[in-house]
């Protein structure tokens, strides 16, 4: 690229960044201003200047570390179980067309049923542990992974299996070494979606059902009539979720770059 093109590109990026910073800072500014000017209720809406000190004290506390640990472990375990099972289910669905068709309908109905209705059943079986949360999260992760695995496997260019056949690969080799890698561009977004669901689902489940964890903490602050603390906890959850999604996107970029090598 010529120097002027580089400069223009850099300028464009800088402009984008400046705008983003302005938007976010503007929203925080308006919030603070509206609260100071009493356009909005001080207790119900809180204000950034009150939330910030709460944030600082919360992060330093032991309860926060415990909540973070609990949420992170539940999320990771749920994701791993869900992704592995999802992979298996996806392969099965891909192989059998009848199951494929059935799966569509199951999916449509399952989409709007809150999984938490199965919570009493899981509670009776597993007791008041993290297991029900983990199982519900795994169930949620399973779906996008399974769907994308079956979609990806079905969308492989027909030349590749023929190539595998002409190279006299056995069916297992043809699957693992040819079809599966070729399907990765469609499979990986499913894994990403599953991860995002693991984060969102864990926090959501904790909010409704659990007694520990970042999601639970928000509800607890609400019930204890501590609005500033509640908003601080909400901010913590937001930052956690955003960091997790940035992480998985970076992994995604790394994988696709590695693919291109």
């Amino acid at each position, binding site marked *: 690229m010529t120097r002027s093109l580089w400069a223009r590109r850099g300028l464009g990026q800088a402009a*984008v960044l400046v705008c983003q910073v302005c938007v976010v800072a503007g929203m925080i500014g308006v919030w603070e201003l509206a609260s100071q000017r009493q356009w909005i209720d001080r207790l119900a809406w809180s204000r950034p200047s009150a939330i910030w000190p709460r944030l600082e004290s919360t992060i330093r506390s032991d309860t926060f570390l415990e909540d973070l640990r609990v949420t992170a472990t539940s999320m990771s375990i749920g994701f791993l179980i869900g992704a592995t099972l999802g992979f298996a289910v996806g392969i099965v669905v891909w192989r059998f067309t009848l199951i494929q068709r059935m799966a569509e309908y199951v999916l449509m109905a399952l989409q709007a049923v809150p999984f938490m209705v199965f919570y009493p059943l899981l509670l009776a079986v597993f007791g008041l542990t993290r297991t029900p949360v983990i199982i519900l999260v795994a169930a949620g992760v399973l779906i996008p992974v399974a769907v994308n695995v079956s979609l990806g496997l079905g969308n492989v260019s027909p030349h590749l299996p023929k190539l595998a056949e002409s190279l006299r690969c056995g069916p297992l080799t043809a699957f693992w070494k040819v079809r599966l890698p070729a399907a990765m561009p469609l499979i990986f977004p499913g894994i990403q979606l599953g991860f995002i669901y693991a984060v969102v689902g864990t926090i959501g489940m904790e909010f409704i059902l659990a007694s520990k964890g970042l999601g639970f903490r928000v509800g607890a602050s609400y019930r204890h009539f501590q609005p500033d603390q509640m908003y601080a906890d909400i901010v913590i959850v937001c930052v956690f979720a955003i960091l997790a999604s940035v992480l998985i996107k970076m992994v995604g970029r790394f994988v696709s770059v590695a693919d291109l090598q």
Partner: protein
Amino acid sequence: MSEMVVPDLVRASTSTGEPAVKPARPTWQSRGLPALITIALTLAIWLLLSLRSPLVAPPQAAFVEAINGLRDGWLRTALASTLGSVLVGFGAAFITGLFVAMVLASSNFLRRVFDPLLAAYGAIPRVVFFPALLSIFGLSATSKQAMGYLSAIYPLIVTVTAGIVSIPPALNKLSASLRLRGFKRFRLVVAPAALPSVLLAARLGFSIALISVIISEYFGARSGLGVVLSESYARLNTDRMYAVVLTIAVIATVTNMGLWSLQRRLSR
């Protein structure tokens, strides 16, 4: 493989807007038979689970309870409350979302600015906003409507923007060569080309709004399906609980299928 719901999310998230699979034309047998088998299998598994555990109400009990609920009224009022809030929240999200999507689609720079911000918003479990909404709006219908709005707005904006952006440039050139401007161009070119994405977004947004409103009701509201769910859970009235679950599943399936067939008919 014919269309599924989550692959459409893939479409939106991989942001090429190109369909990953061309849907095949299904025959009545290939559509009817799997549906029947699925329903039969689901009922069978449900029945088995209910026999093994007293915490799961058998399907026939749930069904009877639902019918009684419609007749006696509690299900009718709960449905009216929930669906009303869903329609308000989703409707508002649909209108504002469409508007925002059109603005975003028209400017590359705006997209570059707002895509990361929107992605950050989408990563947040929006359920945690609910206590804040309760603080602000109190224990009223507005809280759950706002919840539905906040949940549905993100997939609506993302999907519709991707849909408008992925209109083939040939169509834009066609409208330029036909000297179509403004509203005429919108009506004759942009709107029909974007319609499948808009319907897809509506389908996604409605399901998400439905589940958000129900979860909000479960946590704190005056009326609605989620309230019935939480009350029957507290009283261990499993018949009523599963009657509500059954109702929700039926609503979700019917709306989804309705919008899905509309989408397919319009994208031919």
